[in-house]
């Protein structure tokens, strides 16, 4: 299974990156919808806005595509924080995808907290294609929050 070997290797790389130290930097996995937030992140980049390099972006068709398992898996494989961002409610490219996502992620957030995972490590945002500045702010704020919290060892080290 070449695919799963590659996944294991990536997981090890992510895990080794998040080993604590003086110059420790958190690893944050971001699931961005193709239509708004990914383009928003792109516009932050082309606008040359300064943002921390802690966020690893995974592009998904819609925030409704984000299976809650992705988020738990990211934590298991060594992510210190997870971010999901989609179009603003009402602006979904597929009309209603982010409304479904909102319900699901609302329940998920409460559940992660219940399982003993700090809820500040998981954030959901709505960011449109033109909101490059907002994206930069989101990245800055979550990076600072997660850095202050320290490495998330709980799930990965279970």
């Amino acid at each position, binding site marked *: 299974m070449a*695919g799963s070997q590659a996944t294991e290797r990536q997981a090890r790389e992510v895990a080794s990156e998040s080993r604590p130290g003086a110059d420790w930097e958190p690893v944050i996995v971001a699931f961005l919808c193709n239509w708004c937030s990914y383009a928003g992140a792109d516009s932050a980049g082309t606008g040359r806005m300064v943002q921390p390099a802690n966020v690893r972006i995974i592009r998904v068709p819609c925030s409704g595509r984000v299976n809650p*398992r992705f988020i738990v898996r990211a934590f298991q494989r060594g992510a210190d924080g997870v971010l999901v961002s989609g179009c603003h409610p009402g602006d979904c490219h597929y009309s*209603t995808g982010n409304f479904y996502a909102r319900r699901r992620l609302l*329940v998920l957030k*409460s559940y992660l907290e219940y*399982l003993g995972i*700090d809820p500040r490590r998981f954030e959901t945002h709505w960011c449109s294609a033109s909101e490059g500045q907002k994206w930069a702010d989101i990245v800055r704020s979550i990076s600072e929050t997660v850095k202050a919290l320290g490495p998330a060892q709980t799930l*990965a080290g*279970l």
Partner: protein
Amino acid sequence: MPRKLDVKTLGQAQGALRAEARRLLTDGTVSVFLGHEEGWDGLPVAFFAATPEEAGRLVWNPLVAFNLAKYLLDRLAGEEKVGIVVNGCGSLALDRILKDHRFPRERLYVVGIPCTGLLDPEKVLALPDEERERVLEGGEAGEDLYLKRCGWCDAPNPVVYDTLIGDPVPDEPVAQEYPRVVELEAMTPEERFEHFKGLYEKCIRCFACRNVCPACNCRECSLDQWEPLWMGRSTGASEQLMYHFIRAFDVAGRCIRCGECERVCSVGIPLMELNDKFLKDISELFGVKRPHVPADIEPLGQFALEDPDLEGAV
């Protein structure tokens, strides 16, 4: 509240059930009737009666705890009509399968029996012989002998049926409370994490909880899939966490709160701690009063514009 066992009515119901099943099998309304028969150790086991004579083997007593609805999935192939007997919670399980469009209603003939409470078979079996007789024949059961779900049951009468045997029992609303979840929520995140870690470490992944669950009725279970490999094959708390997360999240909003997963768990993991959290959250966040009762559209399969927003929520 646990309901009072009524042995006399149960006996009459068993007679009426056998007669009804015999009638259905004789006049060809159904080609097979799904009920319980007595197993080798005295506990009821699932039983497909295929001839009028076999209908005489059907039993109805306070130990028919497990719901039969999931056995219908074994009869998906073919066109034959299937008869099934359900009590209150059994009918919720059946309704779950029907609302999930997993078995056609036209191929079903449902015999409903109002429920006066069920006993935990394991606990009854563990009693000394004399006491067990007193419980089963005299109906003198202490509150601790009842199934946990009888404590929060608000559907003693079947919600789906074609024929009802006996009179409906008084059906008073029971406020759905989740005391164990509230208790856990009051703990610190670290304590909770350690608590759940202990449960994952205990799990041997026998899949009994998935197999018994009427809401776990997918054609192909994602836990069995190789690609994508959602849950690693190695055993360990980390993979067990993924297993229990997947299982609980996939039945979130569809769980009928029958507590069968917890009852059949071979290592005694209190699985309802995980399921109840979703039921509690769904009722609080989306205002669903009876989240365990199957609805046409499940709570997580719909949305409302006024749902709480979670942008940047901490």
